[in-house]
């Protein structure tokens, strides 16, 4: 079981790294924001798996905090800082 947890954590980390391409390429700011939202969820899953491996329950609190605060950056983006999109026609 331990093997499965760590392999899955590694797999999710690789997923996250592959998704990095979307942050680098964009093109719109919304695309980058979406990718970062997906990374937040992936990080929660990785932390939960690591918590199971090390049977350290405090790590679930770290995951809980990530889940709780997942929306804040995106809300700040939508409310405050949506740059003019480069492919914006009007």
């Amino acid at each position, binding site marked *: 079981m331990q093997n499965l947890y760590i392999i899955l954590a590694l797999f999710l980390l690789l997923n996250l790294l592959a998704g990095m391409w979307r942050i680098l390429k964009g093109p719109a700011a919304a695309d980058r924001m979406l990718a970062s939202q997906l990374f937040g969820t992936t990080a929660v899953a990785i932390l939960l798996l690591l918590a199971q491996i090390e049977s350290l329950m405090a790590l679930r*609190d770290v995951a809980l905090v990530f889940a709780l605060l997942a929306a804040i950056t995106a809300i700040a983006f939508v409310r405050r800082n949506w740059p003019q999109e480069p492919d914006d026609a009007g």
Partner: protein
Amino acid sequence: MEAVGLWQSAFDLMLGFSLFGLAWRMLFCADLFKSIVLFITFGLLMAIAWVRLEAPDVALAEATIGAGLTGALLMSAFAKLRTLDNSLKSGQPLLPRPRLHVINFWIALLFTVLLTGGLAYAVLSLPSHSPGLSDAVMSQLDSSGVTHPVTAVLLNFRGYDTLLEMAVLLLSIQSVWSMAGMSDAGEVHTSPVLNVLIQLLSPVLILVSAYLLWVGAHAPGGAFQAGSILGAAGVLLVLSGRPLFNLKKSWLIRLMLVAGPAAFIALATLTLINEGQLLKYPVANAANYILLLETLATVSIGTTLLALFVGSQTEAVQQDQSHQ
């Protein structure tokens, strides 16, 4: 069992290289918005790295600050930069990339190599297994009033560290307030979906904040993490466009800002007179003193972080009022 260790090494290697690559891309990226998103991702991976380094306290702090407030603060700061300079669009560099003179390049390279070499020497000359002060902390843990060693060090054995940190936070908000703010170009209208999201999230945020404060006595948690969550709840309310009362004018806010440092100083003075030493609590009451200090510190830290985020917005409110 061998295989688990192997996979863990693979995970750690991958994580280390990604952190390095991310930092590189972030620093050498001309587009500020892309840098911000990369920095937020860097924070996520950094929290996982702290977990792998068996430092859950730091991971929790990184999660509360990195995931919550840093992103919102950077987004807000970038928005203000853009109101200053309308030509600043996504995908456009803020500053032209400086061109280094050949001699300057070699001088910079020489210093970098020397610094890296010195650091490498210092790290490699460290004893590979140093007990540090953890034995001393564990032997005194019973008299601290808490069972989590990190909290015992931060609030009891080296309580003055936390006292000074509270003072730094107070100074930071003072310097922000002393600088004239720029008007904020935030949208005013609210969205029904955002309202529901905030109505559901706010109570959970406050509950988790209280939970982290309480759990700090015997597990990773404590005033700083709890305060950051509380601050995040405030930031969420401000972002939803709720008319928060004027932070700068309200005496209640000022009271909340100084409650933590004031309680610390009062207790430090009291213990100095009674026990002859700064922040040396009587053993029987240590747990109560720590809980009291942490509760007030949580309120102050949360309010300070919210005030730092709102910062210049109070100026905009004042200007609006003076126009009427």
